[in-house]
């Protein structure tokens, strides 16, 4: 197999990236590429990709079944009400209102009833359902469009509305837990690295610089010189806490030495490197820019 043949089809890779659930997407794609480079055919690769997408869609539908339930029930009611003359004047809003109880039942069955979710989904449904019928009716005409197409369009619109408006409590809980663990980990690292890495050049000027500058971006005290200092390769959260004029030599800002005696907890938080990579990098934070002036002169 030469170099070109050892590369799997790009379209299949693109489909895998965008149509499969994110949890195991990278690992699954890597496994498929590995097997393909062991000598599997293009047909095998495409077959595996289609199976993976189908299984992924079914898994996600099962996981978010209240939204799917809402979309199915709403679509059935919507299309049924379209045939009743009394609703012809303003069918969309009435049909959405008729679909709302379906959502309420679905959410109640899932023990995740939230008025906010219900209202949000209703508003989004009204907003979204107004768009396609108007556009299609204006462009093509309402009687030309096949009923199946209407069904598909309404179903997908309601599914998107439910997806946007509702959030399952399981996912929300996971997000909260992850967030708390991230914050805890960042605080621990902040304390761990922050306390021992202070270095003030020119110790004889320490007395003069003991009180001022008190705040970031203010001026230096009289008869002091700027110390070349910076925070190297820091993440967003820790950088935000370098509000006082103590400097760091390695990796973290120094602040709040009173936290020296805290016990460090072991926290497994795999999302920390991602958080740090995405966060703004505080390279060469310049606390001492601007002309020197005494803090008292600013009052």
């Amino acid at each position, binding site marked *: 197999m030469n170099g070109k043949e050892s590369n799997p089809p790009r379209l299949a890779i693109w489909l895998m990236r965008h149509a499969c659930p994110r949890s195991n997407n*990278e*690992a*699954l794609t890597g496994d498929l590429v590995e*097997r393909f*480079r062991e000598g599997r055919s293009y047909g095998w690769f495409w077959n595996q990709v289609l199976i993976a997408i189908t*299984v992924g869609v079914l*898994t996600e539908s099962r996981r978010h079944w209240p939204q799917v339930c809402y979309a199915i029930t709403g679509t059935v009611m919507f299309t049924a009400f379209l045939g009743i003359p009394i609703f012809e004047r303003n069918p969309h809003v009435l049909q959405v209102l008729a679909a709302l109880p379906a959502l309420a039942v679905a959410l109640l069955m899932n023990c995740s009833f939230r008025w906010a979710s219900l209202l949000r989904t209703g508003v989004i449904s009204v907003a979204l359902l107004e768009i396609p019928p108007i556009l299609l009716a204006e462009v093509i005409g309402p009687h030309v469009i096949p009923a199946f197409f209407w069904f598909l369009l309404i179903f997908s619109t309601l599914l998107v509305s439910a997806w946007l408006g509702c959030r399952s409590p399981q996912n929300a809980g996971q997000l909260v837990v992850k967030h708390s663990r991230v914050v805890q980990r960042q605080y621990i690292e902040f304390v761990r690295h922050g306390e021992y890495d202070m270095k003030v050049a020119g110790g004889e000027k320490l007395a003069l610089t003991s009180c001022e500058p008190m705040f970031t971006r203010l001026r230096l005290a009289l008869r002091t010189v700027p110390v070349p200092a910076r925070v190297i390769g820091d993440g967003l959260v820790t950088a935000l806490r370098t509000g006082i004029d103590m400097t760091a030599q390695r990796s973290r800002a120094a602040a709040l030495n009173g936290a020296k005696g805290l016990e460090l907890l072991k926290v497994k938080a795999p999302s920390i490197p991602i958080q740090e990579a995405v966060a703004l990098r505080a390279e060469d934070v310049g606390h001492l820019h601007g002309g020197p002036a005494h803090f008292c002169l600013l009052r």
Partner: protein
Amino acid sequence: MPKRNYLGELELMVLLALSRLGDDAYGVPISKELLNLAGREVALGSIYAALDRLQQKGFVTSLLGDPTPERGGRAKRYFRVTPAGLRAVRMTRTALTNLWSGIPLLEGRRS
């Protein structure tokens, strides 16, 4: 509603394959193990779906490995059976053994 903690057929086979593979268990070896020992060619997407369910039940844990060039720079996800997973396998074996015993038709074929 009580949580479903029993194993399906594919989940049981994947758990047994994981137990055999040990620390080097990721998608490709698991699929090869199922093909060689059970004679089943299971799609990798189905294997990952089963692993996802097992992970939600707390029967396996996963760890992301390093990216490798033969996989196009994509990382492997290694899986490992938890003690709860081993308990579930033993319980399933006991249940199946109990169901298996006392069936004259099957016992006659065995002899």
